[in-house]
């Protein structure tokens, strides 16, 4: 009996969270993942699926330099190596994209999975896959990549599975081209999945039009647009007139929407990029820099790789899940991205005929809705079935069966560019081999979503920046709120023609840059709602304007710059309106810390911690009452809104707390905010967390977040923050920093907060983090054929074809 119980307890997850016998077994359990620190990665493999011999030279940081004649052989090996080092992550990310997390973790993920299905993630991936497979070159690349991943998966047995499979108790399934397509949609969701339409609709009703415009303005006074002010835009040919019913049925609709989405991508997802041309650099050749800001995770979202083929020689970072280099360079050009932040996601209210959701009212008739039955497998439980209706707009995300807050009977269909068919992979495959500006311009024309600021620099001296994607053509105000879905008059009228997308090629200023700010000022003829950052762009532009004889070291320093321009503009308001005679000794001490602070968000500064708490308290003092007039909290105004309002007008109408009888003014609010902040700051002081880095506690979480804290890195000493060029927040920030000087030979420097191996039992799991935290870079080994016997090569993997 005891014996049988032992067998059961140690072999299943029913009693203990882990099957300890299986998990700790020295021959098949977790000990097998303890990679010797002097492990020899040299190997000689015979594999089906490649046409010729492929040699992979690994350097001491475990970066593979893949040398293949045929580019598809290179993609095969890239797939094999992605799987070898990152299999669990690749699969987990695509499970998440497809709404299949419940299969792994059980019913706690059912709502998440339903949301993924109902926003049409799989539908979107299928449409993307159809376009990618219609094109011979991308189909061949994907097929080769998938075969490479599967060649590795086939070599696995229980003992060499990644740790996470052993922890969670499942095994990998075969990779497929659809999974690569799903990955592109997960990125799209991360970067172009943010919208505020439902929240805005509600806010408009509660606040009225005037207050709405004051709290959620389209433009910031301090805007430094991606494309410099003063640029002349051609007059658009498209019809930008709103429908005749817009005033009555759209802008003045006064019914509330009570759905707020539980699932939203992080609004901080963004990036910096800039390129300076030879007029500004010491070498006389362009320097390109890029640092994409994403959730910091282990294993990292990025995998560094070089692809050397007959046709091209590209180096940079790739996404485990896709073939090709995503951000990087080749012999002739360098390329990088920041997020455009444009709103490409709208909702339409749908009137169903009945509960079956099988037909809806559209253009004066009942129209059939396609029904997609989503089957969500749940670990240890029965499947969950969910029916999603598809309309001319797209999937009906919200209806009676899927709502988040309060009872709501309405149905909303989602129109999202991510559902359109397009072949975005083709852009990357073409960029990898692009030789000049024309090749780059052609490559980016294939890209439809998520909208990006695509930066370019070439050895021949050109620099360029295009904000590129297929952006919906909107009349002014279209898509800010939920739109009527009973006829076609509110549908998008098409897309802005690519040539009219904001762009800048070899400007006189000698540089181009972007930092997720609004692409253009108000003279740009199209309506471009979105989620934009204001302050990083100000610092970047001011710095770059004054920089000459620039070297790569200068660009590295700029990427790690901690200057807080927001505080520069906001601090005078705090100083001016605080009533000094009403402060306690503690409060005066914090006031002095703020006033004596050098405005740098450096790791050891305490002034920044004091400033942040004071300003946040002021923000709450001013807006909390106004935003809580309804059971559904209203979306918060952007941080520039309060700063600019107070800069313009000290009698700003929201200053008074509507819930009190006395009338508050700016003096009382600023002083009261410091008193509130002091309570928090005293607590932090007691915990020794006043220093910025200690307060911020920069953490690189494992993808399993709080369930796997020993696999994370916490307490990383780093400065920066929101609105700072060094955008490092608590768990979010520069996920790859790259500086490329387009000289001959190219000088390339980069780093990311992770490591090449996804195995928590490998010394290559997180070995870049300290270098990254210090603001240092690795010099990239950009290999050419003649370097095959370089001493920088530590191991060689040979892939031999088997016919």
């Amino acid at each position, binding site marked *: 009996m005891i014996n049988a119980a032992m*067998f059961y307890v*140690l072999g299943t997850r029913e009693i203990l969270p*882990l099957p300890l*016998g*299986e998990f700790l077994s020295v021959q098949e359990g977790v000990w097998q993942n303890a990679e*010797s620190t002097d492990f020899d990665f040299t190997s000689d493999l015979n594999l089906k699926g490649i046409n010729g011999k492929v040699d992979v030279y690994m350097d001491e940081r475990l970066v593979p330099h893949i040398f293949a004649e045929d580019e598809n052989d290179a993609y095969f090996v890239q797939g094999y190596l992605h799987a070898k080092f990152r299999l669990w992550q690749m699969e987990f990310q695509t499970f998440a994209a497809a709404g299949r997390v419940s299969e792994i973790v059980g019913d706690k993920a059912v709502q998440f999975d339903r949301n993924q299905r109902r926003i049409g993630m799989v539908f979107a991936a299928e449409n993307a896959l159809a376009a990618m497979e219609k094109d011979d070159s991308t189909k061949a690349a994907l097929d080769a990549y998938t075969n490479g991943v599967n060649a590795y998966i086939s070599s696995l047995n229980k003992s060499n599975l990644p740790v996470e499979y052993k*922890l969670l108790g499942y095994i990998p399934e075969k990779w497929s081209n659809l999974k690569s397509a799903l990955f592109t949609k997960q990125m799209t969701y991360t970067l172009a999945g943010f919208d505020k339409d439902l929240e805005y609709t509600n806010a408009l009703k509660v606040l009225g039009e005037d207050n709405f415009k004051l709290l959620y303005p389209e433009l910031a006074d301090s805007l430094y647009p991606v494309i410099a002010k003063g640029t002349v835009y051609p007059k658009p040919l498209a019809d930008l007139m709103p429908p005749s019913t817009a005033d009555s049925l759209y802008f003045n609709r006064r019914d509330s929407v009570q759905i707020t989405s539980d699932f939203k991508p992080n609004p901080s997802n963004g990036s910096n990029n800039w390129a300076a041309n030879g007029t500004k650099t010491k070498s006389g050749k362009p320097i390109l820099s890029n640092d994409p800001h994403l959730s910091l995770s282990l294993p990292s979202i990025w995998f560094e790789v070089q692809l050397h083929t007959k046709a091209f020689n590209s180096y940079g970072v790739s996404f485990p899940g896709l073939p090709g280099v995503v951000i990087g360079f080749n012999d002739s050009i360098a390329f990088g991205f920041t997020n455009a932040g444009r709103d490409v996601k709208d909702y339409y209210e749908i009137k169903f005929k009945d509960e079956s959701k099988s037909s809806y009212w559209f253009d004066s008739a009942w129209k059939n809705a396609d029904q997609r039955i989503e089957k969500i497998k749940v670990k240890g439980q029965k499947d969950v079935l969910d029916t999603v209706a598809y309309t001319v707009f797209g999937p009906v995300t919200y209806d009676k069966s899927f709502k988040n807050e309060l009872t709501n009977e309405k149905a909303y269909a989602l129109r999202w560019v991510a559902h359109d068919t397009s072949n975005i992979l083709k852009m990357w495959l073409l960029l990898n081999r692009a030789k000049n500006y024309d090749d780059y311009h052609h490559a980016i024309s294939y890209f439809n979503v998520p909208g990006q600021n695509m930066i370019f620099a070439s050895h021949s001296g050109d620099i360029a920046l295009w904000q590129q994607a297929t952006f919906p053509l909107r009349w002014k105000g279209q898509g800010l709120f939920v739109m009527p879905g009973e006829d076609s008059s509110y549908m998008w009228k098409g897309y802005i023609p690519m040539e009219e997308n904001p762009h800048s090629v070899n400007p006189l200023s000698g540089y181009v840059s972007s930092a997720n700010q609004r692409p253009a000022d108000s003279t740009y003829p199209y309506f471009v709602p979105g989620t934009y950052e204001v302050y990083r762009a100000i610092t970047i532009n001011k710095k770059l304007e004054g920089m000459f004889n620039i070297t790569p070291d200068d660009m590295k320093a700029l990427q790690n710059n901690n200057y807080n321009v927001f505080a520069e503009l906001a601090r005078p308001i705090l100083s001016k309106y605080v009533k000094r005679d009403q402060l306690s000794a503690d409060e005066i001490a914090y006031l002095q810390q703020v006033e004596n602070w050098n405005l740098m968000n450096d790791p050891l500064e305490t002034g920044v911690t004091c400033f942040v708490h004071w300003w946040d308290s002021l923000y709450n003092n001013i807006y909390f009452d106004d935003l809580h007039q309804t059971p559904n909290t209203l979306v918060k105004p952007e941080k520039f809104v309060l700063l600019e309002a107070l800069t313009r007008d000290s009698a700003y109408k929201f200053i008074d707390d509507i819930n009190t009888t006395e009338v508050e003014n700016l003096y009382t609010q600023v002083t009261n905010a410091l008193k509130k902040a002091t309570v928090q700051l005293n607590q932090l002081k007691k915990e020794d967390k006043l220093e910025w880095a200690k307060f911020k506690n920069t953490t690189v979480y494992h993808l399993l977040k709080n369930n796997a804290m020993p696999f994370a890195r916490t307490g990383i000493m780093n400065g920066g923050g929101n609105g700072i060029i060094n955008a490092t927040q608590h768990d979010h920030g520069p996920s790859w920093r790259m500086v490329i000087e387009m000289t001959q030979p190219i000088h390339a420097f980069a780093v990311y907060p992770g490591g090449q191996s996804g195995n928590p*039992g490998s010394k290559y799991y997180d070995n870049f983090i300290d270098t990254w935290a210090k603001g240092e870079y690795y010099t990239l080994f950009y290999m050419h054929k003649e370097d095959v016997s370089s001493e920088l090569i530590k191991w060689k993997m040979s892939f031999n074809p088997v016919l």
Partner: protein
Amino acid sequence: MKFIVSAITSALLSYAFGLFLPWWSIMIVGLLVGYFIPQKRIFSFLSVFLGVALFWGLFALFVSTSNEHILAKRVAMLVIKKDSPLLLVMFTGLIGGISSGISAVTGRSLALLFKP
């Protein structure tokens, strides 16, 4: 003598079985050794426990040392909530030893059942 033979046999068989069978092959080893090597039940248990615990423990220690305990540090925090690779090594030995040792007792009991 039987005690030592029993311990060594358990360790060797566990290794051999583990090459092609799942983790529970150590329980089969316990059953077999308990069945075929006649001793008092307590000695069956202790000898198999010792053999397998040492095999698992030393194996884990060896692997972990050449890994500079990178993985063991993390997994120890995860499984036993202690920042101690060595404790995880001992815990591993314990789990291996107990599960095979109890099987040895079962094996010995079966042997006694069939040969009264």
